[in-house]
């Protein structure tokens, strides 16, 4: 063991203990039901009840001419007899060109005219799955296929040239439209990135512009060895986002800057404080006591003192399960993230520690899995066969563990011992897709968990395009808080039918 100048404070905690999630009360108390955290999500009437529902539609090869798209339902509509005409597909195309400050083919007048440009062209409706992106060919030509919808956010980001981004909000397109974006030279936004003592951060530090109105992000530009950077933008107010490579200790910072034609340029310096990382060493073992080789680990800074910005560092353990990383002094959260494996033995783990200098962490052993015995019943306590149970890790990598109930409504499921969000999907629409929370699975290892399916709200209808039914599509039901309520599918006639926990 190495010597440690460490102030190591907090012990390993299951994620649920630190979670911000608030589970609703009102569980159905049963004598043989494990207690405390086995609670149904709140379905009671509330002023916060969702009033909109989004259908994210993923067509199959039976509707090959349709693209993935979102459709929104309003609470004023009847949801039991829906007839949804999906947006047909349109094709738009064009050529991207941009100002070339140093043309090498025709060196007549540098920067005299726009040259074809490699870029990423994207059209999407914010908050929806509707949209697509494509990379131009080397001559700047591009083509996109999209659902025929309104309010597209259209953007063009140069791939190699340091040029301003091209953004068109709230744009509608018609089939066959040709769009030829020109990225002009813009105005320079420049600055110096340095520490308090005037030293620079070295390689692998990047800056990029972000449009504060749309969130569109421009190309990443490297900060040079002397700490200088330069971006180019159209006149206006911008966010400058600075970050290091994912494995380094450079905090992520975002600052605002305005640039005007009148002033011609803008300067924005970053004082990064004094970054004095210290070496942290440790060892992680899996649930069977073997070294956890090449285990993904994630450090998140909770408090790094006077150093501004946010910092997340992603690494792997060595072949021998060792942690060897440079971190800034402060309070850190460490997540150990076993690769998803339904047959695996270990669970993810979250621990918090405080660092004041070079340190060796205490040995970490990952918790084992938990086997749950589950019984799913209807409103009359009768068993329900064929219920798909999906238990998803709350946080970590959000792995999903699944099984299906048998003729007795029973199932066994081996899960990681971390907080889980459980979704029960009945085989038909007589009962609702019902959610439960399980913050401490180990507390239920010795007793059968009883879950009952809610009555819910019926959502029923047909998906079609013109008069053709959209067969065998997957439809995700998402509430206005962007939470997945459940999943349903269309049949050979394009019909879908589900009940969901939702109030109107």
């Amino acid at each position, binding site marked *: 063991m190495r010597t440690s100048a460490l102030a190591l404070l907090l012990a390993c905690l299951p994620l649920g203990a630190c979670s911000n999630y608030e589970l609703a009360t009102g569980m159905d108390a049963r004598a043989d039901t494990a207690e405390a955290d086995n609670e149904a999500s709140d379905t009671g009437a509330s002023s916060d009840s969702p009033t909109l529902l989004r259908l*994210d539609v*993923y*067509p*199959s*090869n*039976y509707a*090959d001419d349709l693209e*993935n798209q979102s459709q929104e339902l309003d609470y004023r509509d009847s949801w039991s007899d829906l007839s949804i005409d999906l947006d047909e597909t349109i094709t738009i195309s064009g050529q991207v060109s941009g100002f070339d400050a140093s043309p090498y083919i025709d060196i007549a007048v540098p920067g005299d005219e726009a040259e074809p440009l490699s870029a*990423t062209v*994207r059209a*999407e409706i914010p908050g929806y*799955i509707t*949209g*697509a*992106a*494509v*990379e131009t060919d080397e001559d700047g030509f591009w083509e996109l296929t999209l659902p025929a919808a309104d309010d597209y956010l259209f953007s063009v*980001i140069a*791939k190699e040239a340091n040029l301003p981004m091209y953004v068109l909000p709230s744009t509608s397109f018609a089939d066959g439209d040709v769009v030829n974006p020109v990225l002009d030279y813009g105005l320079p936004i420049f600055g110096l990135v340095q520490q308090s003592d005037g030293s620079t951060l070295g390689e692998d530090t990047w800056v*990029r512009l972000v449009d504060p109105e749309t969130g569109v*992000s*421009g*190309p*990443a530009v490297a900060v040079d060895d002397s700490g200088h950077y330069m971006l180019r933008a159209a006149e206006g107010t911008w966010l400058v986002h600075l970050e290091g490579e994912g494995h380094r200790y450079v905090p992520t910072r975002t600052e605002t800057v305005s640039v005007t034609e009148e002033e011609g340029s803008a300067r924005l310096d970053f004082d990064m404080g004094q970054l004095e990382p210290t070496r942290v060493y440790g060892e992680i073992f899996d649930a069977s006591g073997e070294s956890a080789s090449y285990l993904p680990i994630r450090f998140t800074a909770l408090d790094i003192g006077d150093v501004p910005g946010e910092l997340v560092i992603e690494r792997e353990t060595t072949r021998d399960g060792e942690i060897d990383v440079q971190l800034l002094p402060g309070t850190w959260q460490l997540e150990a993230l076993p*690769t*998803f*494996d*339904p047959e695996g033995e270990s669970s993810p783990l979250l621990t918090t520690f405080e660092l004041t200098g070079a340190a060796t962490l205490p040995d970490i052993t990952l918790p084992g899995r938990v086997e749950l015995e589950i019984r799913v019943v209807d409103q009359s306590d009768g068993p329900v066969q*064929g219920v*798909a149970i*999906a238990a*998803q890790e709350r946080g970590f990598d*959000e*792995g*999903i*563990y*699944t099984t*299906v109930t048998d003729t007795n409504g029973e199932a066994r499921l081996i899960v990681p011992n971390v907080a889980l969000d459980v979704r029960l*999907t*009945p*085989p*038909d629409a007589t009962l609702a897709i019902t959610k439960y929370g399980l913050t401490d699975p180990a507390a239920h290892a010795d007793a059968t968990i009883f879950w009952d399916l809610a009555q819910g709200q019926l959502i029923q209808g047909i998906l079609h395009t013109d008069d053709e039914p959209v*067969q*065998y*599509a*997957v439809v*995700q039901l998402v509430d206005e808080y962007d939470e997945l309520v459940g*999943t*349903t*599918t269309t049949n050979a006639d394009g019909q879908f039918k*589900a009940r969901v926990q939702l109030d109107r």
Partner: protein
Amino acid sequence: MGCFHWPPLILETNVAPEIYASNPSAGEDLILDRPTVAFVFASDEDDPPETLDYLWWVEGAGTILSHDILPDSAGSSVTLTVDTALHDQTLRVRVADGKNDSVELSWPIQVVQEGL
């Protein structure tokens, strides 16, 4: 000489599962320009749908993906986030019936991301 009578020979056969619908379609690339869902619908003539096992993974990287079961055990889906490490990899799904028969489908992944 008497006759020797052989009992009738009974051959047990098993029908492999079939993938009858998917997104992306068979033979297409999976364009990963935003978080997206890939799915298959599968059936099996001689096995109930809830007995079918689905395994999704990224070939090459060897990464197993967690998946969701579609209602009425009609199929399985995965949700993929935009990750440059997936570029030029292959997403593959195997549907097995537990009797040594299975069917597979795969899609080359093309990641489209600004700055890639």
